[in-house]
């Protein structure tokens, strides 16, 4: 479960990116985080992944308090979250299999566990048979699927996707979002930051609308239904 209570984030240069935000995302939910540029979406993602700490209020992520989390606990917290980036962030010199294996090895998985898990996850994201391909041999959509597979491979309770379709054409974008919806159906919480109205409207999920560091809309439905008029 994710809960923000009067969360604040003011950067060292004085920019108040998040101004007293409160919301809760229950286990198993699918949530779109939307809003214009500079609305605080990326700051919230960074707060959830522990890249930055809140300057006020409380941020709870899967039982960890992000304002009081110790450096040693950070890896444990991050193992509960799978992150998907707009630019995929795959390691170019490693095969699809190795990209996933690295993520598993990093959390202490044994070679046997790695050998058993990776084919299952690759099948789940529709990349069976691509194990030995390098990222630059794959299309953008396929690379993003690898990124999804990497986020999934350690079986996290939450997936955070930061503009996952930003670099994809509409057809591939729909494929990725459908994939995330399928993952959500298996019980994983999914939070998607996006600015693509069409996709948000297509899935009819909970939408949290941010503007100038504040929540200005929070409801299930369409982008236009949540955005302030």
């Amino acid at each position, binding site marked *: 479960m994710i809960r923000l209570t009067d969360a604040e984030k003011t950067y060292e240069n004085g920019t108040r990116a998040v101004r007293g935000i409160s919301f809760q995302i229950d286990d198993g939910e699918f949530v779109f985080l939307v809003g214009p540029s500079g609305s605080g979406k990326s700051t919230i993602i960074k707060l959830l992944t522990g890249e930055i700490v809140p300057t006020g209020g409380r941020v709870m992520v899967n039982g960890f308090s992000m304002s009081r989390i110790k450096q040693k606990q950070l*890896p444990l917290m991050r193992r509960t979250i799978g*992150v998907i980036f707009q630019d995929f962030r795959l390691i170019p010199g490693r095969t699809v299999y190795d990209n996933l294996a*690295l993520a598993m090895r*990093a959390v*202490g998985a044994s070679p046997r566990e790695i050998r058993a898990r990776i084919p299952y996850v690759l099948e789940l994201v529709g990349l069976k048979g691509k194990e030995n391909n390098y990222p630059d041999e794959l299309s953008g959509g396929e690379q993003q699927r690898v990124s999804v597979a990497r986020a999934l491979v*350690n079986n996290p309770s939450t997936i955070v996707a930061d503009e996952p379709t930003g670099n994809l054409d509409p057809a591939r974008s729909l494929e990725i979002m459908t994939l995330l919806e399928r993952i959500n159906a298996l019980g994983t919480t999914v939070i998607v930051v996006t600015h693509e109205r069409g996709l948000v409207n297509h899935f009819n999920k909970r939408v949290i609308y941010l503007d100038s560091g504040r929540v200005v809309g929070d409801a299930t439905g369409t982008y236009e239904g949540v955005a302030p008029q």
Partner: protein
Amino acid sequence: MKNLGYFFKEGARNMFSHGFMSFAAIGVTVACLLIMGTFSLVAYNANENLADLQRENAMVAFVDDSLTESRAKGLQSKLEKVDNVADCTFVSRQEARDAYVAEYDEDDMYKDLAPEVFRHRYVIHLTDPDKISETKLLVEEVAGIDEVRADEVISAGFITIRNVAGVISAALIAILLMVSLLIISNTIKLTTFDRREEIAIMKMVGATDSFIRWPFVFEGLLLGLFGAAIAFGLQWLLYVAIANGIGNSDTMQLLEVVPFRKIWQPVAGIFAGAGVVIGVGGSLMAIRRFLKV
């Protein structure tokens, strides 16, 4: 520990993927270790030669004229009990006279020299030549000893030379160690910079700092050990060549060079140790900054 193979493989992969920088790092490590090693071995050999000279610089204790030869001989056990006395040899006045005459055997005027001109004496060697002054005082206190001669000025000179060589050697070692450390650190920095994205991804999926750090530590370790191994081989060749040169030289015959086969084990150990310190230290210095994600 289950990831040991992975860390080693990654370390080796990093090393070969930055072939030129690794080559440069190993080259600089070899050069630094070779200079360090050569200077240390020169200092070691100088120290050994000086120690020999110091040992030869024995103390002479003259026995009181009033004591008979048998009573003079009786002082041996008392002298041997004096602190810092390694050994003492009795030389009778007759033996002293004979040695003196033999030294000047071309000069007939000493042939009729009476043994009574000389005194019974003991030639004393010390365990620690640095304590020559204190030992001289103790020997003088032994009843029946009339006078003690010890060349403290020569002894002090030996100590000064040895200490200066030691200080220069230590300073050079410290400077060259730092240079090697910085070069290895820069090589690892390049690797970590090249892999910063990978490090960030590993952090993001929940890797601990130690999991990220170990491959770089192994890379540094391998660079340091490769450098140490090559430096050791070259040091061996250089040492043997210099030793042969000194052995064949007419002017440097006095110098005694310790054979390399007698010292190769400690030298190898020191080179390996220095390689590990340089490699691991350098990589730890380099990786620190990149772990803050």
